[in-house]
């Protein structure tokens, strides 16, 4: 007798998941068990968000959902249906970098770049709620993002510089 898991359970089969990503309506068909990070990366082709641990510890998968910083490896894509997702691809392009990205570049806040998208989205979330964070506030907010390369000093400096740049922009 074939013993096979519930592969014929219709409520485990793929469903259409529709959501807004970086301002655009997107949808794809995926099993309910599909992680949001996998949905973004492989179903929607947005590979800027990275998978580092699938345990919610490293922050490489950080995106914004309805403006809030979340771990996309700890969400099912279906939980984000109807929601508004922002990934690193929404920030800027090589020829027109966002002030946060420019600050990261200026202050050598990345080396291998794998953690960087997560840090950028975390920084965006931080500066949206605290326009002039102190160093201690920056470090505390970013304590859930791991970088193995930089030792964080460049990142912390960059976030402070980005805060000032965005403050100047607002005038």
């Amino acid at each position, binding site marked *: 007798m074939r013993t096979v898991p519930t592969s014929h359970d219709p409520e485990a089969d793929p469903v259409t998941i529709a959501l807004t990503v970086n301002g655009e309506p997107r949808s794809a068909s995926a099993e309910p*068990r599909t992680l949001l990070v996998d949905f973004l990366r492989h179903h929607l082709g947005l590979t800027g968000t990275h998978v580092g641990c699938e345990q919610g510890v490293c922050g490489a998968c950080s995106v914004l959902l309805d403006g809030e910083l979340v771990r996309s490896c700890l969400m099912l894509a279906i939980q984000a249906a109807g929601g508004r997702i922002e990934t690193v691809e929404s920030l800027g392009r090589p020829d027109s*970098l966002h002030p946060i990205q420019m600050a990261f570049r*200026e202050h050598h806040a990345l080396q*291998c*770049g794998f953690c960087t998208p997560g840090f950028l989205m975390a920084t965006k979330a931080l500066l949206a709620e605290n326009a002039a964070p102190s160093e201690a506030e920056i*470090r505390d907010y970013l304590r859930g993002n791991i970088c193995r390369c930089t030792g*964080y000093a*460049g990142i912390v400096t960059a976030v402070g510089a980005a805060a000032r740049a965005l403050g100047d922009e607002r005038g």
Partner: protein
Amino acid sequence: MSAPRSFGRHIGQRRSRVEDARLLTGAGGFVDDVELSGMLHAAFVRSPHAHARIVAIDVEPALALDGVHAVVTGQDLRGVVEPFVSALGRPEVRTLVRDVLAVDRARHVGDAVAVVVGDSRYVAEDGCELVRVEYEPLPAVADPCRALEPDAPQLDPSAPGNLVADITLESGEVPALFDAADHVFRKRLKAQRHWGAPLEADGVVASFDATIGELTIWCTTQMPHPTQALIAAVLGLPASQVRVIARDMGGGFGSRARTSIEEAVIPALARMLRRPVKWIADRSETLIAGVHAKEMVVDLGIAVRDGWFVAMRADVISDAGAYSLFPFTSMVDALSAPAAIPGIYQPSAVAYRTRSVLTNKSWSGPYRGIGQGVSQVVRELLIDEIARALNEDPVELRLRNMASGERPYRTPTGLGYDGGSYRQALRAVCEMIDYDGVRGEQQRRRAAGHASCLGIGVGPYVEFSGWSGELGHAHGYPSDYFDSATVSVGPDGSVVISTGAQSHGQGHETTLAQVAADGLGVRPEDIVVREGDTATSAWGMGTWGSRTAVIYGGAVLRAAREVRERIAQLAGHMLECDPADVVIEDGLVWVSGSPSTAIAFADVAGFAYFGTEIAGHSASRGGRPAELELPLSVTRSYSPPQTFSNGAVAAVVEVRPDTGVVNVERIAFVEDCGTMLNPMIVDGQIRGSVAQAIGAALFEELSYAEDGSFLSPTLQDYLLPTTLDMPAIEIGHLATPSPLTEGGIKGMGEVGMVCGPAVIACAVADALAPLGVSVDRLPLDPDAVLEAIRRSALTGTHDAAHERPTQTGGTRT
């Protein structure tokens, strides 16, 4: 502190990175970003046992699952993929063989025994759960000292006694010097298993084009060309039919300076199935079955006479794991640790015995600093103990016994230091950390009965770099290597540099462009650096052992020098002057003394190719003479002599004796890597490696229970430093160019992991010295610190039955 001397217009400049634009915008090309049409996904079935005979594997239930395309076992791969043969070409090191998928026995938790290929990773994992493996568990051994005992489980018939190697070296009259010493000081250190832990997990994508018989492999490797050669060999293909691509990679730190079994299995599957196959390790896999490092027991003895370290003696037991790493073997730590025992000091005699021992754990290999870091820990801790015993100032004791760095110095272990700012760096770091001020504060707090203990450690270091054949030989690695760079100028003057390096955070696209810019006389913006693709990159051994700046920087300089000479010859013809009078700078070319004669570098390039002008550029008369048909593409290799950068580090820590919590408050770092390519990059390497040092000193550990079960399968267990773990770090630079290398470049990169764990350990020992505490193991987490306090001389209590199950170190005394 003097500013580093600048080499040229671009070398030594703080230049923002070329790489950043794509990495910041989510456009990096990491292995998991590769999507190929028809691609399938693999997942491995891994042993839950530390040691077990594989009795039978039933793949039928997995094959029956919708979406599963293939299930392959080690038996299936016999004859399809040759086993890895890890050999070192010297008689003391045994050759060990590893099947790419275990066939007879699984030898560690996580050892791969089968692989399932499915439509998605999700389905492949479903399939893995249906593969029925019948195991017969065998006794396992997790402690390397236990593994040496005659009745220990034997892991490999080629390594009787579980010994991969047992090597002794004696240089100088060690026994006589120990006998004649005023004092002999000893210390045993247990260094924990930890590793590079790069944030991007291992991955392989393979695609086989049957029409031309070419296999393309994207993988997370620090050594694309050697991997190409090694994988081709085990798959029975010519290397020319295998292409390895390692573009962006999320860190390496030595843990990917190897060829992995997955890098053989996944391509074999792609070839078998005639479809692209992708495998990306999940975090648990990468922790359980990645390249572990640095687990050692080191017994060190220092003979002291009249305050001089006259001789040193060491016994090193290095835990190799269950297999000998491929291709560098398990000897990475086992050879580098004893070689580094003398460090920056000058004992006239050194003897050591080093053993690489098999245990039922994942294989062990390089991690930043390799054995230098562990030797630094045990030696610097012991030197501080010597200072306390002899009532000497620990800095003065070091200054007296250090090499000065004023002239090259050869250690009894065969390493050749090429000089540096050894004493200056130590003095500078003491000033930077305000050593006297901290000592004063420490005294004040002790007198006042302060609840927390302040401690300070200082550590001078030398750090090898540019790991070439010669440095390898000095360590006991008999291989020669080949590393090269190609400098190519196109008809429009644009420049392509290709090297055998592989950048995974070090910014080669920026730094090597700076080198080439000075070498050629063009602007860095006009240069593109290409690495990591065996189809287009010059051959090399890859990036590890701080090789790139010295070796590839040197090779680029050599190649650029030749191209520049050719440009000068061509320009001499165009400008009607002696080539020796041609000045080339920032993309302009003119006759020395007459800048008004300047033409564009691009014009000369156009002339080289077409013998005439390219539209828009100035003309040359009469076409290109026959003798000036000069290719503007030159490949040069470089194998440097031994070169060592140096520096000194100081750390101030606060230890709470009631909770065992260690807080690293400040670190000062003085670093001398000779000619720096880009100070921003150098500082980044220092800061990153210091962060790793904090983890190594305080909380990183790959833990196994005594029975070989693995206790660190997630990042909640294997803790990595966060923003809140970092102290203020002050950095200063000295510059003593190497007299021996191209450009005086010494290179660096392992730096913080060479000296950092040691200085933190020393600071903790210093903080707790009044309690009679001796530090003899890492990491110094709260449990270890409290245990050390409980065991200390003054409290006099033994905790002989220390119940923490991860302590695989045998009896605790």
